[in-house]
């Protein structure tokens, strides 16, 4: 039994059939990258797991339990965190309030806060600042931090490097590597070398299904089976 298993997941946006049977599995403590061109269904896969866009068919098992049909907040409370694309802060809340909101009511907020600030000391400096006034890199740090404080065991990370300067990307990579020590991670990433560097395994998605998969060991963008799907 894998930590997370998707079997023949089919998801629609209205009439548009986006996921046409995605099957994949993730082992505990692994980082798995979902790669592929724009619009092939990578983000939709994450949204399906979170039940934000509930699949119409297929099964999703998390720690052996079927989570299809649950509400998003229940899935979240099962220990699945989300670092959405474009970061999507609660802009009018301060850094600290953003973290506080993400801590589950019966968790120890102080301990969680200390944990986050020890991982990302930069956030401590801006704790009283409203999130909308942070830079892109700082917002990404906060988004990752917020995904981690719920004592989440699985983190779904969507396009963490998007729109960030190379130097900031390095910091984000560090942050993700730190985060991965405590959690399993599914990573959607357009930046192919970055995805290969971070992940243990990859799934290549095209037209709503998995077309290739394997270890990231030694895989480059020149690899024939990759190039076929990634070059436009």
């Amino acid at each position: 039994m894998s930590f997370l298993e998707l079997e023949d997941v089919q998801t629609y946006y209205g009439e548009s059939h986006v996921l046409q049977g995605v099957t994949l599995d993730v082992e505990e403590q692994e980082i798995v990258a979902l790669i592929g061109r724009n619009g092939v269904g990578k983000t939709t896969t994450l949204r399906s797991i979170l039940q934000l866009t509930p699949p119409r068919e297929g099964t999703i098992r998390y720690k052996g339990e079927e989570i299809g049909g649950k509400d998003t907040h229940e899935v979240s409370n099962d220990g699945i965190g989300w670092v959405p694309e474009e970061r999507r802060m609660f802009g009018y809340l301060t850094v600290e309030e953003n973290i506080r909101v993400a801590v589950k009511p019966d968790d120890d907020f102080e301990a969680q806060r200390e944990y986050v600030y020890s991982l990302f000391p930069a956030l401590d400096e801006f704790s009283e600042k409203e999130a909308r006034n942070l830079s892109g890199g700082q917002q990404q740090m906060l988004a990752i931090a917020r995904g981690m404080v719920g004592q989440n065991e699985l983190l779904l990370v969507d396009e963490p490097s998007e729109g960030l300067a190379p130097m900031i990307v390095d910091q984000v990579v560090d942050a993700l590597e730190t985060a991965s020590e405590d959690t399993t991670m599914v990573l959607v990433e357009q930046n192919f070398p970055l995805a290969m560097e971070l992940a243990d395994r990859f799934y290549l998605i095209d037209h709503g299904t998995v077309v290739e998969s394997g270890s990231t060991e030694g895989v480059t963008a020149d690899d024939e089976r990759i190039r076929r799907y990634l070059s436009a």
Partner: protein
Amino acid sequence: MSSSDEHWIRSYGRDQFPHVLVVLGFALYPILLGVLNRTPVASEASAFLPGLTFMIIVLYMGLFAISFDFISGYTGYLSFGHAAFYGTGAYFVVLAANGQVPGVPEGMPFMITMFLGATLAFVVALAIGAVSFRLTGVYFAMLTLGFAQVMYEFIRHWGYVSSNPTEGATIPSGADMSIGVPFVDSLNFAVGRLSGDSFENVLGLGIDISATMTSYYALGIVVLLSYFVMQRIIHSPFGKVMIAIRENEERARAVGYNVFWYKMGAFATSAFFAAIAGALFAAYAGGASPDNSFYFLVTADALIMAIIGGIGTLAGPLFGALFHEWFEDILSTESDGLSTYLEQLLPESVLTAEVAGLTINDFIGTFLDGRAPLYLGIIFVLFVLFVPNGLLGSIRDRLGGTVSKRIPAALERYRR
């Protein structure tokens, strides 16, 4: 910001400094008006400052607009049917005063019937919310508006209310509409446009308190308490989740919040306080009619006040209400507005002078007298276009935080 060795009363007082100023301003205003009336600028004062009767409207409409902002400004769900709750509160106390509410004996103190009416509105909001929160955005707004219109039509034709339900119902003369501690006579003050308590020569100081003034202070205390309850909720973890829903509902769900029940809680709470506002209005006005309580234009007034004052600022709508009523006052002749002032100030020859076929007098009558809604509409549009954050919202943006937090810090800087 506050050092730990500082006495908590001091630091609390400093944090609440702007609140204290506003409360003092409202508390001293009637006295200021009274003093000005005995000075040479008496006619200017009554022309350009809102009279006390308008200030009472500021209080209850301000509370209604604050309750509207509580749900609309903080969760982002526009409650276009908010008048339904205002009306529920107003009609409940009127019917209770007439002994027409089953289970509520005639003569039940107003403070208790007000609370019961607000609780009823809370329950009604849960029912409306259970359906309306299935949708978002403009569809939510339209559904709540629809429910309110259904209630408006129903109440207009509900013979139980009075023999002429379209005209509404009145509170019988002699009914005790007192604000204070229930069952303690000395701590109760009757409110009402005509029937309120008045006091002469208070404490032997030669100060007379009129019935209007009694109503003003009594309503003011209820509004103040209601505001503080809502303000505490906004600053509690519950309030932070409300803001999170407004900022990004999907994300709030993914963080693990059952947003449906948070929205329901916020909606019902705002309905509770809308009903308090309605009850205060009915007690003061001595009755309620469908058109001044359940009608959708009552919600529109709250919307205008919230936009002008600053949506999502909680206190802002009170200032929006102040602006709104001040404007209504100076452009009406009800209590010596601008037109009365001009008619007295300008000599007869000027008033009858013709410009393009209109005398100045006609001009005043056409463009000033009672024209507040016209100009308020224009001002509303200008605010939406150029001051989208409203009065208080803009000040907060300028200061970089809430006034309570920023002003003391700024003062501290100057003191050093």
